[in-house]
């Protein structure tokens, strides 16, 4: 009979001995429990091997790779750089526009293409709308992890409006193939600006409602404050980025510190966790950073819609893709989950020689064993949820 493959754990279970009052000794043992690939709460196919002593976690070992789809290998066999964009979409499928933009930026730097200003502004609008949509998923599923089933559906109603905007522009709701190297595939349709402004006015009070319903609810605060605390030094040492890093109090946002696009022309502030309800860097801080980032994204979208210049979005699309031989480039952007970077090596042909994607969720997940030790299983679920992983990005 075939046995399922066992993945190696280099953990030996500790035994203990408890003396009872009658003089006998009872052997106690730590338990290895599997929060398996199929679980309502691990946000995808992630296997967490947890060693527990009662209800306290002694160690937690994540096993990934269940969603590996050989993205980097596929890129080497594409006919040209343009064909990589649908594949890049599918890495972090909850936040596809930011993936495409990062790759397009990398390719444009490699091919030395300058895009028109209208393209930059539209890219910013799309990326910020996508950031709101991605944070809505994060917040909604975080509510489900903690037991509140309703905020998830409210966030998805708001997300539908964003996806309607995207569908109106490029024809797809989740995986867009919209941001092309050198420009965009379509220009904005006539009704886009009005509908986007309607969305901004509609969404602001919804953030307040979500805060009242979930974020400031005392039960939720008690569950998430002082849980999964990620200290500043540990976060920096593990190369954590995105809302997780900012939740630990580090004021680092690639849109301001390593600028790309037109972010330097717009007024917005990166949001940082200050430990309002517990310690700095706990799960509540990461959650409130995401909620406040959604508000900031609304500001960015409003400002961009107001100053959108005219132009032709397909003016800079390259006719032939001819990079230099032996050129390489690494470009990093602030995706919804953190620093998304692409390292492209070209060999002079129209298809890349090697593409390496630095997925933020992969790096952010690596910090989970460090912050989960010593907490309870119920806390582990909330900690893993606050890291906000998407397995497509972890496994690529």
């Amino acid at each position: 009979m075939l046995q399922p493959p066992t993945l190696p754990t280099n953990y030996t279970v500790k035994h203990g001995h408890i003396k009872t009052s009658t003089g006998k000794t009872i052997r106690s043992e730590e338990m290895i429990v599997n929060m398996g690939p199929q679980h309502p709460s691990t946000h995808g196919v992630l296997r967490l091997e947890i060693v527990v002593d009662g209800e306290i976690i002694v160690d937690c070992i994540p096993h990934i790779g269940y969603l590996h789809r050989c993205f980097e290998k596929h890129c080497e066999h594409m006919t040209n750089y343009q064909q990589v964009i649908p594949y890049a979409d599918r890495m972090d499928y909850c936040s596809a526009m930011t993936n495409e933009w990062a790759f397009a930026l990398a390719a444009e730097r490699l091919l030395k293409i300058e895009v028109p200003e209208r393209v930059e502004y539209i890219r910013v609008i799309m990326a910020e709308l996508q950031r709101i949509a991605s944070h809505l998923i994060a917040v909604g599923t975080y509510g489900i992890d903690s037991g509140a089933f309703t905020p998830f559906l409210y966030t998805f109603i708001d997300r539908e409006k964003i996806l309607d905007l995207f569908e109106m522009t490029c024809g797809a709701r989740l995986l867009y193939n919209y941001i092309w190297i050198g420009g965009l595939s379509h220009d904005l349709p006539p009704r886009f600006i009005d509908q986007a402004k309607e969305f901004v006015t509609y969404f602001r009070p919804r953030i307040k409602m979500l805060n009242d319903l979930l974020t400031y609810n005392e039960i939720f605060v008690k569950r998430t404050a002082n849980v999964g605390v990620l200290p500043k030094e540990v976060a920096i040492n593990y190369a954590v980025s995105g809302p997780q890093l900012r939740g630990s109090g580090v004021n680092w946002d690639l849109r301001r510190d390593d600028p790309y696009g037109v972010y330097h022309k717009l007024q917005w502030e990166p949001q940082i966790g200050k430990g309002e309800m517990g310690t700095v860097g706990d799960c509540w801080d990461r959650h409130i950073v995401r909620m406040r980032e959604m508000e900031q994204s609304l500001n960015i979208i409003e400002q961009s819609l107001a100053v959108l210049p005219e132009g032709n979005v397909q003016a800079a699309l390259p006719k032939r893709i001819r990079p230099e031989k032996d050129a390489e480039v690494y470009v990093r952007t602030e995706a919804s989950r953190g620093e998304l970077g692409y390292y492209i090596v070209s060999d002079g042909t129209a298809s890349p020689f090697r593409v390496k994607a630095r997925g933020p969720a992969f790096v952010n997940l690596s910090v989970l064993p460090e912050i989960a030790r010593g907490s309870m299983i119920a806390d582990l679920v909330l900690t893993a949820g606050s890291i906000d992983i998407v397995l497509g990005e972890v496994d690529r």
Partner: protein
Amino acid sequence: MEFIQTIFANELFVAVLLSIIPLIFIIVYALVVLYTEMKVAAHIQDRVAYMRTGWHGVLQPIADMLKLLQKEDIIPAHADKLLFRMAPFIAFVGTYAAYAVLPFSSIFIGSNINLGAFFLVAVGSLVVVGILMAGWASNNKWSLFGGVRSAAQMISYEIPTALAIIIAVMITGSLNLQEVTKFQDGGIGNWVIFGGPLPWNQKLMVMPFTIITFFIMFVASIAEVNRTPFDLPEAESELVQGFNTEYSGMRFAMFYLSEYANLFTVSAVVVALFLGGWSSPFGSLMSGPVWGIFWFVAKAYIFVFIQIWVRWTLPRLRVDQLMYVSWKVLTPWLFFCLLAVGLILVI
């Protein structure tokens, strides 16, 4: 009950008949509450549920029951077979036995014993045994977690329940639930939550404490039934289905049925003790034996609705926070209320 006895001379036959009537009520009520829960949950979440079977889905609970009835009976290979089979029935028996002392109307109570409230608390502990058995016998670490957590939770929340019952009993003077309800007959002012039929100065002093007691009893009863925010034993996000994970088909239906029957039981107890049971709030208007059933079921149903509403709004508490709430918040406040009510009644 007595007049039914006059129709049929055989006592055994009467006893069997009286015990079947709550069972029929449970089954009919389970269908209604299943539908209510699904529809209320759906509309709170801005969606509609169940539009296809029957008009707006009214036949869906029957379809669900039929589906569960015809499912395959799967028992895990290394499960403890006897315990696994017995667990759902013990849980259900614990719930069902409590229906014996619920006063549905002035003429109908399953068993008019003088220890009604005491019997309720005692029999409610059987459910704990059933859940522990289910958790252990499933041979599944996650179910074990669920079972053990649930045992801790239910045992610690029985104390606030019992204390609240004591307070209501102190005011009314009898453990017999039928007597308690008769004591509150005569209009909304006589309900125990507003102090009971006492002289107005005592009533005014007792009223804040009885309101707090009623509220605490309601919260403790949500915890007894394992519903959010206290539903750690079956926390769907963490333990898949907790102690229920390995159960399928009719055994799962038994657990499900016992959970919903428990919902009604605890609401009914709260209503009988604090809100006047089968007595009409308008005094003599709309009162009588048949009206009694309507008032009793309607009032209990309002609390069932509130429990459903709370379930779909709030996140869940962690195990140690659960214990904190029970031992450090509910119990001390109830002791204080007990002291206060006792003093006021004496003075």
